[in-house]
C-alpha cells in the first residue's frame, strides 16, 4: 500500500534539514510546533545539539493557538525572546501544525518585523517532505535574506559549499574531508554553509570565488547566487575517491570490475561514487543510482531510480540482478534474499544513526 511502512522508520523530515542549515549561525530558531517536532529535530536529527548549544526554541503552540490562529501571541513571544537572547536573526521553521491551519508566513514575517529589529527568515516546511526539501528552502532563504550586496572580490580565493550538513553525509568527518580536498586544490578558504560558516560568512557570501554543490539540496541556492551575484558553481562531491577506497577492504577495482552495482544515497554523492567506480574499473562496471531523496532529472542516467515506497526498493533489488549494493545497513533487512555483496554506505537521514567518532 502506498505510504505504508513495515520496515523503515520515516526519514529525516524537511524541518530537520532547515534547522540543520541554520543551527550554528547564531540566530534564534523557532520551530512552529507544540513541542514534539522540536524534540524530534534536536533529540534525533541534530548531532550538534548535545555538545554545542544554540538558541533553538519551540513555539509551544497549543490547540487554541492553532484553532484561533493567534499569530499575535507568537509575535509577542518572539518579541520577548529577542529582548533576552543576543542573536543575529530570527528564523521561523514550519511543521505540520502551521501547514494544517494555513499559516501565512509572509504576514507572520511582516508582523514580526514590526516588533523585532532583526532580520526574519520564514521557512515553510511542513514535516511531510524529506530533509533535503527543508535544507534547500533554508539555504535559499538564508542567501536571500542575509547575504549582502555584492562585496568587492576578496583577495583570498574562497569557495562556498552548499549541501554538506550532517544529514547529507555518510560520516561526520566528511565535512573535514571536503574542506581538505578543496584546500588542496588551491583555495585559501572553504566555507561550509550549514556547518562551520558564521553569520559573517553568510553576509559575505556574495564575495566568494566559487560555490560547490555537494547535494541536490544546495542547487537552488547556488543558482540564486549565480543569478544574483554572478558566482559560478559546480556540482560535485570532493573526496569521493577516498570515500570509495574507505568503503572497500580491497582495491576498489577488484570489488567492482565486471559487476552490476547499485548505489543508494543522496544523488550528488552517489553520482560521484559512480564516476569513481567507472574510473577505477575502466568502465567495466554497470552502475545504477537510487535515492529516496531529491534527484535532478538532468543528472540521472538510464537505470537510475527515484524511490518513494519501501516496496520500490524491495522490487529493485529483487529484479535488478545486482552483484554489489552500496547502501545504508538499515535497508538490508528488507531484502534478506539478496545474495550479493552489501557494502555499508551510511545515511544518517535514513537510519538516524550518527557516530561522531567517525
Amino acid at each position, binding site marked *: 500500500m502506498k505510504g505504508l511502512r513495515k520496515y523503515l522508520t520515516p526519514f529525516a523530515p524537511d524541518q530537520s534539514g532547515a534547522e540543520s542549515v541554520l543551527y550554528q549561525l547564531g540566530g534564534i530558531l523557532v520551530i512552529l510546533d507544540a513541542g*514534539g517536532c522540536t524534540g524530534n529535530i534536536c533529540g534525533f536529527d541534530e548531532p550538534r545539539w548535545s555538545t554545542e548549544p544554540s538558541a533553538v526554541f519551540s513555539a509551544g503552540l497549543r490547540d487554541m493557538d492553532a484553532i484561533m490562529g493567534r499569530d499575535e501571541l507568537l509575535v509577542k513571544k518572539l518579541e520577548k*525572546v529577542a529582548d533576552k537572547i543576543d542573536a543575529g536573526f530570527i528564523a521561523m521553521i514550519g511543521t505540520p501544525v502551521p*501547514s494544517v491551519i494555513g499559516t501565512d508566513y509572509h504576514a507572520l514575517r511582516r508582523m514580526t518585523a514590526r516588533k523585532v529589529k532583526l532580520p526574519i527568515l520564514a521557512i515553510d516546511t*511542513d514535516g511531510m517532505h524529506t530533509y533535503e526539501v527543508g535544507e534547500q528552502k533554508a539555504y535559499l532563504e538564508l542567501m536571500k535574506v542575509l547575504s549582502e550586496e555584492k562585496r568587492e572580490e576578496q583577495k583570498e580565493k574562497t569557495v562556498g559549499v552548499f549541501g554538506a550538513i550532517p544529514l547529507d553525509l555518510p560520516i561526520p568527518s566528511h565535512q573535514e574531508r571536503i574542506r581538505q580536498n578543496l584546500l588542496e586544490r588551491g583555495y585559501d578558504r572553504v566555507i561550509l554553509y550549514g556547518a562551520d560558516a558564521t553569520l559573517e560568512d553568510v553576509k559575505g557570501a556574495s564575495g566568494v570565488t566559487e560555490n560547490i554543490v555537494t547535494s541536490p539540496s544546495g542547487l537552488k541556492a547556488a543558482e540564486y547566487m549565480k543569478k544574483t551575484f554572478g558566482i559560478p558553481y559546480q556540482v560535485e562531491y570532493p573526496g569521493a575517491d577516498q570515500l570509495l577506497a574507505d568503503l572497500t577492504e580491497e582495491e576498489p577495482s577488484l570489488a567492482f570490475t565486471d559487476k552490476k552495482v547499485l548505489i543508494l544515497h543522496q544523488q550528488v554523492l552517489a553520482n560521484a561514487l559512480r564516476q569513481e567506480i567507472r574510473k577505477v574499473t575502466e568502465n567495466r562496471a554497470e552502475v545504477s543510482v537510487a535515492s529516496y531523496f531529491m534527484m535532478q532529472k538532468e543528472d540521472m542516467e538510464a537505470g537510475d531510480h527515484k524511490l518513494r515506497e519501501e516496496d520500490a526498493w524491495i522490487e529493485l533489488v529483487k529484479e535488478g540482478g545486482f552483484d554489489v549494493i552500496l547502501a545504508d545497513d538499515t535497508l538490508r533487512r528488507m531484502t534478506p534474499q539478496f545474495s550479493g555483496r552489501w557494502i555499508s554506505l551510511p545515511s544518517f537521514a535514513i537510519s538516524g544513526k550518527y557516530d561522531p567518532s567517525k
Partner: protein
Amino acid sequence: MRKEAICYTAAELVELGKEQIPEEFQSAAQLVYSSPATLAYNSPGAEGFGVKRAGLSVPGSIMLIVAPGCCGRNTSSIAKIKGYGDRFFYLDMTDTDLVTARHLRKIPQAVKEIVDFQEEQGKHPSLVMICITCVDALLGTDMERVARKAEELAGLPVRPCYMYALTREGRKPPMVHVRQSLYELLPKQKKKGTSVNLMGFFAPLIDDCELYSQLRSIGVRNIRQISRCTSYEEFLKMGEANFNIVLHPEARAAAEDLLSRLDIPYVELTRLYQIDQIEKQYRAFGQAIGYEIESPVKKQEALDAVKALKTAHPDLTFTVGEAMNGNPFELALALVRYGFTVSEIYGTPAPEYYVYLDALAKLSPETKIYCNMEPTMLYYDSSTAKADVTIGKDAAFYHPDAAHIYWNEDIQPFGYAGVIRLMRAILEEVSP
C-alpha cells in the same frame, strides 16, 4: 542585554505566592527553550514513556502510526529497546491527505496489511493501536469510528491513541488519554476481593517495594500492573480488581472511567521521599480501606539508609532536576530535611507543589529555582552554584562535573524502598 539565566529563590517564589507564579515558569507565556534538559518535556517519548511506548503496554500489541513523517522519525530509537522491535508500523500522511482526509479511508486496509504481515512472520498480534498526532487533532478526526472499521476488517481489537502535543496542557493531555484508551479494553467481569491493580506507570514498581507485602498481608493475592502482564488475556483480568491504586495523577481519569464503567473504586498514593510523609500516607491509605498499613522494618531500613549517607558525607550539596522519578520540590525538601544542602532546583512550580515549596522556603530560602524551558537557560552558568551530586538527567546536563544520579529508570521507585535505593545509589556514587 544580560546574558544570565533567570531564576528565583524559594523564598521569593513563596513570597509571590501560588497565585502569582512568575511568567518565566509558564510554558504558554514564552517560547520553550530546547536543550538536552528539556528533551523529556518536548519529546516525552525520547526518554522513558511517551504515547508511542505507552500505547504498546498491552502484551502482544502493535502500533500503526498515522502521521506526517516527522512524527514517527524518532521511533527507531524506541524500537531499539528490548521488546519493541518490529512492533511499529507507519502510514505516511501527505499534504494531499490534509486536504482530502483520504488517509482515513486507507487505515482499515493498512491495519489488515500489518496484521497479515505479522501473521506471515509467525506472530499473532493481540491488539492494534492506531497512533495519530497533532494534524488529526486539528482536522477533528473521529478515530474511534475508523478504529471500529479497522477492527471489523482485521478481526482483532483496534484502539486509537492520541499523540496530540497541542493538548498537553489541556483537559485531557496525551498521557492521560493513552491510559484511558488502554484501560477501556477491560471488560466487565466478576470482581475478586483478592485482586488489586496498581495503575499509573508503564513499568513495574521495584521488586522490593513494601506496597507489595502490605497488600499481601491484607489478603490480596493478585497485584496486577499492566507492565507485568505476560499476555493479553492476563491484561484483561485487570477488570476483576476489587480496587485500583493510582500511583500517578495521569492515571486518575482512567481510574474514574473504571469506577463508572466497571464499578472499581480507587485510591491515590503519591510518590514521596520524606519518610515521615510516606508513613503518614500509608496510615491514611489503611484507614481508607479499613486495614492497618505499616512497614516498620522497611521504614527503619530507610532511616538507616539516610543516616548512612549523612554519616559518610554530611555536607553534600545537591541540585535536583525534574527529569527523574519524583517531584523535584518534594525530593529537594526531603534532602534538606535530612540535613543536606540543595543549591538549585530545575523545575516548574505548580500551585499544588507549594505544599513543598512553603516548607522548603522556611528551611532553605536561598535555594535557586530555574525553569528548564525558559529562554535564558541558554546562558546558564554552572559556576554560580555548588553541586556535589545531581539528581535527574537535566540536573546532570547543567553540572557535568558533579556525581550524577539520573534516577530516571523505567522500573519505578516507590515508598520506603524508593528512599533506600536512592540513598544507597547516592552513597555508592560519591564514595571513593
